């Protein structure tokens, strides 16, 4: 018996999946959610094996929701029209359903899920999320804060530090840990606003107060918030080209 959660902001779209899934007694729908916040709680509570996930949703989108999950379930994405995401799905052989969803396509996706072990799906989704799944750049980072979801506008970020498997995002009043790599975060943020000044540090350019020399071949960046951060040689070169020095 597989536990399933349907996540879509349109009520009829949720109903459609519920009806289509009636033919499969092995799949039990434990919940249906209209937004990412709701879904986040529900996934933690029910620990489903499979979710149907819409990408465009209120507050946080489908990708951001997946990034929040410690133990992500298998995912079948449902979307109406998003060229960029479709390319990402194709590239990583991630299951998706194009709206309007037909029974034929739906059956195929479910068959695939039953035949392939669900964990291979989980792996391919995780791989995909490590790359850029958005067209353009994000202007925020979504993090988990004591079991709740928190949206950090990129304007509020003081700097981001790599921390083993996590990144530490430091803002004016708090710092947050997110399971991700600095390289991935760097990809999603606007490169004209954020610069990787060190292997372990990413910072918004507007936070830079001044740069001081430090030892041979290295510098220290002084931020408006008072923090001092090491600048590597490549970091210095990036900073120079960005600021046009």
């Amino acid at each position: 018996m597989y536990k399933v959660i349907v996540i879509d902001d349109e009520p009829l779209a949720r109903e459609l999946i519920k009806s289509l899934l009636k033919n499969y007694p092995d799949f039990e729908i434990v919940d249906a959610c209209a937004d990412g916040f709701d879904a986040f709680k529900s996934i933690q509570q029910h620990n489903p094996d499979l979710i149907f996930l819409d990408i465009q949703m209120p507050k946080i989108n489908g990708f951001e929701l997946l990034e929040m999950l410690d133990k992500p379930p298998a995912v079948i994405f449902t979307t109406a029209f998003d060229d960029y995401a479709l390319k990402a799905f194709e590239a990583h052989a991630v299951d998706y359903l194009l709206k309007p969803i037909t029974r034929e396509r739906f059956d195929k996706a479910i068959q695939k899920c039953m035949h392939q072990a669900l964990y291979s799906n989980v792996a391919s989704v995780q791989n995909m999320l490590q790359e850029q799944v958005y067209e353009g750049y994000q202007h925020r980072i979504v993090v988990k804060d004591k079991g709740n979801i928190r949206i950090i506008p990129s304007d509020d970020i003081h700097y981001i530090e790599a921390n083993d498997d996590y990144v530490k995002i430091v803002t004016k009043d708090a710092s947050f840990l997110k399971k991700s790599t600095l390289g991935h975060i760097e990809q999603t943020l606007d490169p004209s606003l954020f610069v990787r000044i060190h292997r372990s540090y990413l910072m918004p350019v507007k936070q830079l107060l001044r740069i001081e020399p430090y030892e041979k071949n290295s510098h220290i960046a002084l931020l408006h918030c008072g923090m001092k951060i090491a600048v590597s040689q490549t970091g210095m070169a990036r900073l120079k080209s960005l600021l046009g020095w």
Partner: protein
Amino acid sequence: MDFINKHIRFLLLPLLLFGTSLLVLGVHAAEHLDVRIITIDVVTNLCLAAILSRLLAWRIRLYPTKVLSILHANFLAFFAVIILFGLSEFLLNHILLKKDLSYQVYIDQTKYIRFLSSWLSLGWLAHTTVLVKRQADFKRDIELHQNATISLREAELFRLRQQLQPHFLYNSLNSINALILIDAERAQEMVGRLSDFLRLSVRRETQEQTNVLDELTYIESYLCIESLRFGDRLNVVIDKAGDDVDAAALPAFILQPILENAIKFGLYGNVGKVLIKIQIQLKDQLLHITIENPFDSTVQTPRGTGFGLEGIRRRLQLLYARADLLEIQKTENTFTTIIQIPQ
């Protein structure tokens, strides 16, 4: 290379001519003069001429006809020569040569011919400046024209895309798909509404202008579908001030994309119910349309919305040649779009 083309070519040639003519004149006119005086004279004059010619080039502006421009340039050149003469005589007589008698003789002998040669060379410089400026003007005109053509084409393309609205269509079809399985009667109703909407879209395809009444009918057929899709989450209130508003003209497909924007912003920025307010007013020969929707500044803009409003701004600009017809007001939790349509 560009720099030489731009600045030096038009300065160097006349100045060289100017300098050599001075030199030749000086040697010819007064054999008994020493080289020192001629050199100082030529160098001073050249320096002054260089400065003046730069000023001259800045002051020259273009008139609609070539003759006027050239007259203007020559007029300026004439004054420049007078200033040049005054300055150089003052400098040489009082400061550099300290009332040297032989210099005064030299100056007296060469005065007229020097004036002529100076005017000729500065005049030539002024001419070339006029020509270069005219050329730059032409280039800018051509570019402007090309840009206008491109934005017109883009706006047209945007209009087409607005009519097609693949996202809206696919999602509506998906809702119908669901209704077929759970409530066949409502599925029929939705098919009806969707075809109403499409029929109105097709009919309007050829129309450039429409009136408020028609536009609102169209908007309502659109809202009917949206409310089926989103259930009771979506509420839209339309407030019309006065009866004469109905007949007011507005370009086709202007209001609907803005409303679609508002719905997207509202629904994606909020989890609960969403109220969208539309106010339509006719005031001082301007049709004011205000659309207000709740909005969360931390939420990612749904894709495509930026272009939506930009496209509308461009269309209004092309239609009415005014850039101030679309206004956007953002507060922490409301987003207001205001458009004005001249009647």
